[in-house]
């Protein structure tokens, strides 16, 4: 398996950073911001679901923790946006540690782990929906204040750069995983937990670290979401849509790869947007396409688009040689 180099990652990030300055329309710019937010959430999912092999169906719990921290801290306590962002990310890690501590202590994995994460996200959704502190069912509106200290920009291209910066951090974290002892532990855990344990890997500690990092990244996506759309409610922040999109993007792109989540988010949301414009407002068509792509990719390309592209790339020169 060939791994992308840091220089490759840098080239990709710089290329993406240049795109908004080529004169994108407002709609495309918004789509690109959304792609980056989903890519970041998917990168978080990928740490746990891709590298450690613990598929979560409830990453909305982390996304929502970030989004609500951002919204509540700013509107209720007047905390600065950047500080709220840091606290939101920390809260995501904390929620991850909490869910992880309970589930991993009981040795949950596979479908049991998927189900319990889903249940935690639902509990969070119901609580946020009925608690006045979090705005109840009405949700929370953030104040429009543009300027660097408020993390809101009159020129939305700068917000895209901030989101892209976080995606770059996500790429570096994944790259680090592939080159570190800790990442090797995660993969060992995924491939054979008992063998990893027998070789002296502290399985519980490794899983805890993984879910905390995973929660922090996905919470960062939630923070950016709240800051970008300036409105959240329980169904947006803790809704199953985000758990599903994070998982989709990572799996379609290639779970357990550095570039998979980013590629998956761009391809999926790009296709979704295309379907929406082609189908002319029939509701649900974009998600219908997502579902079909997910089934097809599990069936025909279980290792994701990244690996598919690689294997096509490897096959082509072999054929050229034969000819």
């Amino acid at each position: 398996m060939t791994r992308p180099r840091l220089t490759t990652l840098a080239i990709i990030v710089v290329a993406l950073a240049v795109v908004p300055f080529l004169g994108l329309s407002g709609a495309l710019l918004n789509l690109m911001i959304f792609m980056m937010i989903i890519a970041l959430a998917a990168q978080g999912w990928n740490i746990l679901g891709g590298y450690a092999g613990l598929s979560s169906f409830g990453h909305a719990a982390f996304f929502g923790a970030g989004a609500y921290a951002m919204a509540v801290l700013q509107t209720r306590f007047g905390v600065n946006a950047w500080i709220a962002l840091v606290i939101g990310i920390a809260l995501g890690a904390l929620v991850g540690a909490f869910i992880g501590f309970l589930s991993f202590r009981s040795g949950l994995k596979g479908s049991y782990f998927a189900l319990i994460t889903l249940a935690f996200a639902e509990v969070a959704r119901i609580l946020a929906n009925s608690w006045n502190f979090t705005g109840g069912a009405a949700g929370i509106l953030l104040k429009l204040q543009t300027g660097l200290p408020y993390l809101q920009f009159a020129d939305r291209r700068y917000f895209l750069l901030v989101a892209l910066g976080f995606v770059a951090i996500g790429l570096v974290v994944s790259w680090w995983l592939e080159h570190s002892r800790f990442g090797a532990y995660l993969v060992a855990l995924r491939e054979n937990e008992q063998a990893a344990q027998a070789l002296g890997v502290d399985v519980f500690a490794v899983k805890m670290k993984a879910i905390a990092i995973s929660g922090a990244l996905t919470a960062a996506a939630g923070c950016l979401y709240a800051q970008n759309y300036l409105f959240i409610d329980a169904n947006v922040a803790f809704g199953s849509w985000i758990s599903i999109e994070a998982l989709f993007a990572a799996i379609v792109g290639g779970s357990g790869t550095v570039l998979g989540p980013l590629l998956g988010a761009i391809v999926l949301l790009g296709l979704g947007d295309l379907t929406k414009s082609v189908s002319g407002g029939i509701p649900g068509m974009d998600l219908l396409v997502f579902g079909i792509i997910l089934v097809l990719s599990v069936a025909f390309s279980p290792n994701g688009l990244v690996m598919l592209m690689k294997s096509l790339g490897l096959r082509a020169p072999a054929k050229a040689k034969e000819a």
Partner: protein
Amino acid sequence: MYSPQIVVEALLNGLMLGAIYALIALGLTLIYGVLHIVNFAHGALLTVAMFMVWLACARYGLDPYLAILFVAPVMFALGYVLQRFIIGPASHGKDNGILLVTLGLSIIIENALLAAFQSDTRTITTDYSFRVVELGPLLLSFPRVIGFGVTIATTLLLWLVLHQTDIGKAIRAVAKEKLGASLVGISVPHVYAMTFAIGCACLAVAAGLLMPSFYVSPKTGAAFVLVAFTIVVLGGMGSIPGALIGGLLIGVVEAASSLFLGDSLGQIGIFLIFIVTLLVRPTGLFGARA
């Protein structure tokens, strides 16, 4: 505080709604017990069955209970085809693959229904939708009393099928020892598909029982998914008596928590049971030790 009569009535109505939950969970637990897969599309398939019942009633004027006789075979066939030709081959027999393929299917089904029927909720009214049955001083909802009876009958029928017929014996054989069963000539993919089909037929019965007192929209099934999973986990994955008792229990808990906590917070009771069961005793009340 509420008067004892209101509390008992609410709990009994909860018990009877729990019976329909149990029926939904029955299909799920059967599929888990034999195929060892978590069928995430179960809720979406329930929605499909409910739409079929709705169509049969709204378009062709059938009674919803009578519609079960037509919808059940269609759901049976649909389940067979889905498992044999889509879920089975697409997931390559991997756990994670199955989880994702059924999740993908549920999203496809939900959104195909959304595209076809929009997100409006639809109901059917029958002259017995709001009728009540008097049991001494207690008033019970008529559709729920029927639901309770039919669920018990369906569970017994399922038990008979599993224990007295050839296909039932084959299903139990595959559940116990897949390799051994295939060595004595049982076609495992066929048995898998039959099991999935029976699970879907149970959903058709549940749909027919729900429609007189419930509504359907493309998202209805999703609301039942976690409830059904809770029942299956609580009763023990793969255990049929577990699903029945778990369902009744969850119905009562839901009724009690929405009586005392209100409708929106009431659902929390179910999820907390779910989380606690998974954490403390993932094999459930009746499940074999993993």
